[in-house]
């Protein structure tokens, strides 16, 4: 497909793509060296931020916030500033950052070095999900050592006067730490409980200092954008959603996989790229951007293109680009029960509506699947979800509410049937 594997996956088919030699053979670290060997001052910083701004790159962690704009929020003061990479990948259905850490760790390191320089952040932390401890953490650790050994990180790098120290951090299992302020708390060695915003991390981040948090895929995209320029980047994808994205396509498809494709790719093409529906089954529903985004019925997503605007106007969101494909014959009540359990066990316990409400949601759905549901439970489920949405410190509460609202909206009759038939599913 056109523009496939243009950015983060551009070099992953090279032998041992995770090694520094392989990355360098594909032109890796040239952009970083060029910056260091030019005149690495304020003008160079401004040029990089402008390039990223005009490239239209948007944060790939879920929110889609313009990256260059985020960088420009960092104060131009002399105090210690930090760059933090969110490699705490844990949105259910999403597994492309792990792929980057495993196959292209140096793109991330180079991207962090460039971003750190652009914002005058001389220290970076890569917050890696705890469960990756024996999986891809050793790979990114080795990559970091190799980058230091090649004198591409540290103090006065290549005699340029530029400092950038980068460290890998390891979490310990908590979905909420993917929320950027919870991540900063965790990085400080505390429980991962989100902070009130404002102040935003650009003013009050890790250790109370100016901090920018970007996602793995976002930062790993930076070297290629600097190399090829913003016009090149804008030449892929759509006007408002430029570039490519790695779609994690999972569920009932023949070839589940991570596919880097331009944004705006029609859903039908993405499904075809993933080998089509498993066993030739009919498409029932799709969760288009990770578990926290609203479910879309098959006939609705069929007309969508995979970008921020199209999915928002269809009533869902682009999220993390994790596309969960659900075939006819799947019980949506059971699926929602499992989903609600996730938010019940993963909530941080800080805000009452979320802490109490997610338990209500899960217990009501358990009751329904056990055949003890009442017709009034459906209104109660939506009522509880509505009382969580918008009433919590972070977006986790919304994420817990959206699946409940959308599953019941689109598949009301399945819930009703189960309640009226003592827990029997209409789908099975």
């Amino acid at each position, binding site marked *: 497909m056109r523009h496939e594997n243009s950015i983060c996956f551009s070099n992953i088919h090279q032998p041992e793509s995770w090694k520094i030699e392989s990355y360098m053979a594909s032109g890796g670290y040239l952009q970083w060296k060029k910056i260091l060997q030019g005149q690495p001052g304020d003008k160079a910083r401004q040029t990089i931020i402008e390039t990223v701004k005009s490239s239209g790159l948007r944060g790939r962690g879920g929110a889609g916030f313009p990256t260059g704009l985020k960088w420009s929020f960092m104060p131009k003061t002399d105090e210690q500033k930090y760059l933090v990479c969110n490699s705490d990948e844990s949105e*259910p*259905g999403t597994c492309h950052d792990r792929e980057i850490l495993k196959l292209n760790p140096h793109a991330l390191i180079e991207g962090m070095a460039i971003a750190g320089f652009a914002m005058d952040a001389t220290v970076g932390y890569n917050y890696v999900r705890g*469960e990756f401890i024996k999986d891809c953490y050793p790979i990114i650790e080795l990559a970091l050592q190799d980058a230091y050994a090649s004198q591409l990180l540290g103090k006065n790098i290549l005699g340029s006067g530029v400092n950038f120290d980068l460290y890998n*951090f390891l979490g310990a299992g908590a979905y909420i730490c993917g929320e950027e302020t919870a991540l900063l708390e965790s990085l*400080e060695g505390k429980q991962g409980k989100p902070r009130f915003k404002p102040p935003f991390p650009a003013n009050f981040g890790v250790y109370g200092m100016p901090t920018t948090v970007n996602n793995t895929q976002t930062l790993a995209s930076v070297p290629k954008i600097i190399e090829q320029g913003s016009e090149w980047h804008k030449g892929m994808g759509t006007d408002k959603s430029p570039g490519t994205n790695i779609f994690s396509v*999972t*569920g009932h498809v023949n070839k589940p996989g*991570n596919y880097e494709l331009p944004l705006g790719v029609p859903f039908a093409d993405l499904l075809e790229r993933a080998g089509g529906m498993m066993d030739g089954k009919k498409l029932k529903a799709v969760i288009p951007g990770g578990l926290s985004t609203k479910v879309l019925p098959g006939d609705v997503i069929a007309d969508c293109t995979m970008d921020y605007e199209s999915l928002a106007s269809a009533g869902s969101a682009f999220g993390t680009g994790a596309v969960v494909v659900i075939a006819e014959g799947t019980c949506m009540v059971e*699926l929602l029960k499992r989903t609600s359990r996730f938010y019940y066990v993963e909530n941080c316990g800080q805000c009452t509506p979320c802490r109490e409400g997610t338990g209500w949601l899960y217990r009501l759905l358990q009751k329904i699947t056990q055949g003890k549901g009442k017709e009034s439970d459906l209104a109660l489920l939506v009522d509880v979800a509505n009382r969580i949405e918008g009433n919590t410190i972070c977006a986790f509460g919304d994420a817990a509410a959206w699946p409940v609202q959308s599953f019941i909206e689109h598949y009301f009759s399945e819930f009703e049937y189960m309640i009226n038939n003592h827990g029997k599913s209409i789908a099975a």
Partner: protein
Amino acid sequence: MSTEITETVGLTEKIKEKIDMWVVKFPVGKHRSAIIGSLHAAQEHNQGYLTPELMDAVADYLDLPRIYVYEVATFYSMFQTEPVGRNEIAICTNISCMLSGSDVIVQHIEDRLNIKLGESTKDGNIFLKKEEECLAACTRAPMMMVNHQYIENLNIKKVNEILDKLEQ
């Protein structure tokens, strides 16, 4: 469970070495950031779980209030604060794995080991972690982690081979 394990008090040199490696990553005075890494090190050297004595030893070594360490140990799902089996199996049952048949995998392992999720075998060999959330291996579902190694594209045959090895 053998009682001698729980009597581990104090930190070995190896654990201290690992804690020191974490401490230097953070600015002076910000070594609270090293708690998570320190607990990983302590737990690994205590066959997969933390004891109050170990947590206290970590706090004392870092010269931090003990409550800081308890807070972290009880918040994050990777830390076990009760004795568990030596080998940890964590089966993902979240959406993509569920759609790919993780329920069958869970059922098979529970039946074969004769324990439920969240329990350990009587000989202290295997700990079946309570229902695990998404582990970011969705394109190769269903999957599980065995002692933090990812094992993907699971089927019953593959599961049996792994259990055979663990039970040797």
